[in-house]
């Protein structure tokens, strides 16, 4: 199914629209408050953005070196470091480890990269049960869906839909629910998940950052599930992208000024974990075995390319939270793992430009994403660059290319242009119905399906201006 078809379905889905309508002002309002609160600490958002941008750029300029340092430090503290070229390799490595340690159940903390690798499917196929433990991820897993948002996976679901899923999965009758019941429903999920934390032999998490100087993974969560997943099971596997490196703890703390604020508006998330190596002698908890799987899956190709800026992304979700298109469609319409503006850039770059032709065009160019991005990724510029690449590679429909060139050919010949536009405005005037407007315009049905078209006065400005000058 193509983007157009998915989008058409979703703009007409009242349940989805209700869920999205409710979420948007919350995201926007919380972030605005969070960013404003920087001033309480004497910090300036724009200055911090510039610092964050340069931290990320510094890493990307010498990514191989920082990865080397990370690998060495992580090994010293007892972790194993593996490398995966693509999603299939990730899945193979994780299944191998699971089988080596006799794992029957893996508890997962939220990881978008595991979605890239379709890890849950691979584990299930190998007879290992993956259990998502982030509340939103737990909900979408019950629904048999993929997350629709990178930090709020179930944002597309209403409370009624969630109640139905819980009732079925937890074997109880369905009840009417309101937002006042959210704590009770959360407790219900918590009780179920607690059993999984205690019985899973393997924990799988992502990492928000990898800190080169200490060889640690930094995990930013709000529910505490991340801490359970990374400390209770015998084996902990961290699956994350190679671009997630930051050089030092100091750099990490700078980025942490921006990440929670940009994502949820929090000054800091409820849990910030720095995970280094394995359980040491005398430690109360922690895994016996820690494995980092550092994943390329298309990232290295972006280094040194026109798209390198995209690798700065710290996955806060602010771009989608401020995107008018995202909030008209929800995340599933985007067709792959990442939605919103960052998805419209990453999906074509990671899955093939020719496989996601609509996404870079599915933007009004409003730049609401660009002005909120905490690491100053010029998202509209990157989407525009992808549009240019499509044209250069001859991937646009011939009718669009022909129409543009023909129009431009005329527009460079003012006399002809005047003559043709005089005809065009008269034609528009002729199409007007009793309302004084055009209700059906065959040349641009996309416009008049949802809007009237004002027909103008039947004369062009230049025509009227010329007449005025003659008079």
């Amino acid at each position: 199914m193509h983007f157009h078809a998915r989008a058409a379905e979703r703009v007409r889905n009242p349940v989805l629209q209700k869920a999205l309508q409710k979420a948007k002002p919350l995201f926007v309002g919380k972030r605005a408050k969070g960013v404003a609160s920087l001033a309480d600490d004497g910090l300036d958002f724009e200055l911090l953005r510039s610092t964050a941008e340069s931290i990320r750029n510094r890493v990307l300029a010498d990514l191989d070196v920082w990865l080397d340092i990370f690998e060495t430090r992580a090994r010293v503290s007892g972790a194993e470091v593996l490398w995966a070229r693509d999603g299939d390799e990730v899945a193979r490595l994780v299944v191998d480890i699971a089988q080596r340690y006799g794992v029957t159940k893996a508890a997962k903390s939220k990881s978008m990269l595991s979605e890239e690798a379709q890890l849950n499917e691979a584990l299930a196929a190998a007879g290992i049960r993956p259990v998502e433990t982030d509340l939103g991820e737990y909900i979408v897993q019950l629904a048999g869906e993929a997350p629709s948002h990178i930090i709020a996976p179930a944002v597309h679901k209403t409370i009624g839909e969630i109640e139905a899923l819980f009732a079925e999965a937890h074997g109880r009758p369905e009840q009417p629910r309101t937002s006042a019941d959210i704590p009770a429903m959360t407790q219900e999920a918590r009780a179920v998940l607690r059993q999984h934390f205690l019985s899973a032999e393997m924990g799988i998490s992502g990492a928000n950052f990898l800190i080169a100087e200490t060889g640690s993974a930094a995990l930013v969560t709000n529910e505490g599930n991340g801490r359970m997943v990374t400390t209770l099971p015998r084996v902990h596997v961290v699956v994350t992208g190679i671009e997630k490196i930051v050089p030092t703890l100091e750099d990490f703390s700078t980025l942490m000024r921006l990440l929670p604020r940009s994502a949820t508006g929090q000054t800091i998330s409820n849990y910030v974990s720095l995970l280094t190596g394995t359980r040491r002698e005398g430690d109360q908890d922690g895994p016996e075995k820690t494995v980092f799987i550092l994943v390329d899956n298309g990232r290295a190709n972006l280094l040194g390319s026109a798209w390198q800026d995209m690798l700065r992304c710290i996955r806060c979700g602010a771009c989608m939270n401020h995107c008018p298109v995202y909030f008209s469609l929800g995340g599933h319409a985007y067709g792959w793992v990442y939605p919103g503006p960052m998805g419209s850039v990453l999906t074509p770059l990671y899955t093939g430009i020719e496989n996601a032709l609509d996404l870079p065009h599915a933007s009004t160019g409003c730049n609401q994403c660009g002005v909120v991005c905490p690491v100053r990724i010029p998202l509209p510029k990157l989407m525009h660059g992808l549009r240019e690449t499509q044209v250069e590679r001859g991937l646009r429909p011939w009718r669009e290319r022909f129409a543009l060139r023909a129009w431009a050919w005329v527009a460079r010949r003012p006399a002809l242009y005047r003559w043709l536009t005089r005809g065009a405005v008269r034609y528009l005037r002729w199409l007007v119905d009793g309302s004084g407007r055009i209700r059906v315009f065959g040349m641009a049905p996309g416009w008049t399906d949802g809007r009237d078209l004002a027909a103008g006065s039947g004369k062009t400005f230049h025509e009227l201006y010329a007449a005025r000058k003659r008079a």
Partner: protein
Amino acid sequence: MRIALYVTCLIDLMRPGVGFAALRLLEATGADVVVPPAQTCCGQPAWSAGDRQTARLLAEKAIAELADYDHVVVPSGSCTDQLRNIYPQLFADDGHWGPRATALAARTFELTEYLARFAPELPLPDAEGGHVTYHDSCKGLRGLGIKQQPRALLARVKGLQLTEMADCEECCGFGGAFSVNFGDVSTRIVDRKCESIATVGADAVVGGDLGCLLNIEGRLRRRGDERTRVLHIAEVLAGGGES
């Protein structure tokens, strides 16, 4: 002082009255205002579609015909953004057109930006009355930083009351070809804009970009709102009203 008024193709075709309103305002500043006769379109549709080569051809044409004026004034944020921010990018590596594009960029102003900066004392006619709300268009706001200028101008129109709507900085969903190619998504976005406008209950929604205004007007009418007027700020400031 010679000013070129760059009318924009959309105003030329869809609402010539906006062009004449802009012309009256500029003439009232006492400047010698010229409408360069060969102007057609700045090329934004080609640029936006990713057709850099075609965009450059039209940019060269505009740069050449606008070269001899002290200022170029455009009653549109998005076309101004094209001339000011995109043209220099298009010719960044071009020794001939690059410097010309940069020079034009420095002399090009959006209408409200121009009036607020160069004609702060310009007498403005009284309003026909009424209560308006202002829609910030994306390219004007985030591309050019236009926010206070239209409000400062509207505040000087006697008898006019401005009430801000919720999310006035939020995109209306126009996006040029986006509005046609992704018509249903665009409609969904402009629906939210219409709801914000309805909540304010103003007599008119005012903006600085005809594309956004046609989009908002088209949706308001389709939703059955025949009352709320949709006006370009030039029309309000020149006292011309709809034409």
